[in-house]
């Protein structure tokens, strides 16, 4: 089965076309173009202030674009108020109505529709069951825990069975454990209700766990839209690579490329290294190469069969339980990071501080990008 974004015949549910949004002098969105397909779990990821909430509010109808168009389900959304969109939103602070009970909150949107009283009650029960809050239907929001409130907000937003659900940092207020548990609940609910989810987050792990595709944003622009694996393994820019996880960055000059693979002269080591070009690179052009720490292998002896290798001295070891992170100082003074699983209990003298080691990585682990 091909994914809809790879299928040229698929029609997107949301079509965002060169959308710009300015608040006075601040440009919150700068020429954003994006298609989102039915049934996707789409994540908007980026640092604080990059325009994620603004983009979501634009889809919800709470803001008007300064330029460009938003189409939802084939319809141009210019001038359509939030109450006339088949879109619901789960707000960053939940925005539960404090004067209504849990059931009252969930029924709020249903009461504005043409449903009969008994149909509303049935739907409210269904939603309560979906988020496992049957016992708390009569409580007021201030009598709930953070996690329970979050589920009420979700149930309320899903009650009208919207085509599109917008979630603004829905798990921001939860502690780590509850957060991970809720991530899976959200994914389950998304699959069960077959609703398109667009979720905002600035937590990369959250986006990686849940999303079918991720749009990485910065400064009001979209840097890259891709599946989590591709975002992680084939970042198209240094900014995406460094935002999406720890990485080693090597500077150099490209000296050969055939499009599939390339070599470059690593300036600080005067060594030729190989890698896979992420962008089209010309010979003689300056470039940077990113290598993920977990792809870097540490050995005592020189791994002569590996094309990419470098020698250094272990400077410190951070033991993190399941993994250890090694910081290795190279002869030019820079520090290289390597990470490996701790399969056996660590023997202290095996890989101690100040030992001379070799670092190596396969060609496929190195992405060569424009600086």
């Amino acid at each position, binding site marked *: 089965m091909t994914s809809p974004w790879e299928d040229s015949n698929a029609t997107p549910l949301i079509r965002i076309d060169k959308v710009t949004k300015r608040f006075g002098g601040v440009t919150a969105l700068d020429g954003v173009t994006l298609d989102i397909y039915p049934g996707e779990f789409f994540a908007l990821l980026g640092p604080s202030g990059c325009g994620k909430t603004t983009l979501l509010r634009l889809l*919800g*109808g*709470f803001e008007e674009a300064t330029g460009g168009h938003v189409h939802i389900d084939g319809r141009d959304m210019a001038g359509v*108020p*939030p*109450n006339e969109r088949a*879109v*619901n*939103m789960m*707000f*960053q*602070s939940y*925005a*539960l*109505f*404090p*004067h209504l009970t849990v059931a009252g909150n969930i029924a*709020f*949107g249903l009461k*504005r*529709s043409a449903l009969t009283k008994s149909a509303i009650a049935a739907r409210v029960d269904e939603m309560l069951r979906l988020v496992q809050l049957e016992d708390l239907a009569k409580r007021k929001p*201030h009598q709930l825990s953070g996690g329970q409130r979050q589920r009420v907000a979700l149930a*309320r*937003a899903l009650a*009208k069975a919207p085509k599109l659900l917008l979630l603004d940092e829905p798990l921001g207020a939860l502690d780590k454990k509850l957060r991970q548990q809720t991530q899976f609940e959200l994914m389950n609910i998304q699959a069960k209700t077959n609703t398109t989810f667009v979720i905002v987050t600035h937590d990369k792990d959250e986006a990686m766990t849940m999303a079918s595709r991720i749009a990485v944003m910065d400064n009001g622009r979209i840097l890259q839209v891709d599946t989590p694996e591709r975002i992680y393994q084939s970042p198209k820019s240094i900014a995406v690579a460094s935002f999406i996880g720890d990485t080693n960055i090597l500077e150099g000059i490209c000296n050969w490329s055939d499009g599939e693979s390339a070599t470059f002269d690593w300036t600080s080591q005067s060594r030729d290294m190989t890698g896979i070009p992420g962008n089209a690179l010309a010979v003689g052009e300056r470039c940077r190469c990113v290598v993920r720490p977990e792809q870097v292998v540490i050995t005592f002896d020189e791994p002569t069969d590996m094309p990419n290798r470098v020698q250094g001295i272990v400077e410190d070891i951070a033991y993190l339980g399941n993994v250890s992170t090694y910081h290795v100082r190279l002869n030019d003074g820079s520090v290289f990071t390597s990470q490996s699983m701790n399969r056996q209990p660590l023997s202290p003298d095996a890989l101690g501080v100040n030992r001379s080691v070799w670092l190596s990585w396969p060609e496929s682990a190195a992405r060569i990008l424009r600086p």
Partner: protein
Amino acid sequence: MRRLLIAIPYLWLLALFLVPFGIVLKIALSDAALAIPPYTPTLALDEGWQSVREFLSQLDLENFVFLGEDALYWKAYWSSIQIAFVSTVLTLLVGYPMAYAMARAPRRWQPALIMLVILPFWTSFLIRVYAWIGILSNEGYLNQALLAIGLIDQPLALLNTNVAVHIGIVYTYLPFLVLPIYATLERLDESLLDAARDLGCSRTRAFWSVTLPLSRPGIIAGCLLVFIPVIGEFVIPSVLGGSDTLMIGKVLWNEFFANRDWPVASAVAVVLLFILIIPIMLFQHSAMDKREVTA
């Protein structure tokens, strides 16, 4: 130390409410007399136990019976309640939109707007009420203006009517109603309105189903802050009202100063207090509710 701290509010209550109330109640149970002070019996503590007992035996409920038998008093109480009720509703109709507009105004203007609401307190209440004579009288500014634009061709008789009393009350008590409502509206989370819109409400509908219910504590507090003092209001009905404006504050004043019947006047005051206890308790209750919601 802790007990002392807890005792302070009770001492306060004792000194500022219970003791004065006891004195008034005592006078209400006495009989009028041509003397100084103008009632008997008076308590002479230096004459021993016997005289205290004699004193107590002379107290009776005569004055309260008198109040119950004379229709004038009941009419005055009832008309005070009516006037207070109508003017509270009018104040709410004027004050709520004001408070709403204030809360919706740009942040940096809000301190100035609050200032404008409080500003009238800087001049004497009595002078401000008198100033309304100049506005409402037959030759007053209001009639002049209405005549000038041709809306009427006879000056309206406003002064010395209940209409003038209502206008005076709305004007005077407006800040007491605007400020508590403003306080609740100002705290209202904007995202709740977004949520209401998101769930299918038009702007108007969102006002009725979210803004209004959430400002209820402010509305109740504001209305009671107007209603309670207006029932006993004396200055506004005497300055702006007519001879047929019947309010218990005026009756009370007459009993004290024109009739010099302190015991009956005190009885009127005691009954007034009991009438007010219900709304005062409601007020306390709503204040508690408010604290609970904000906590």
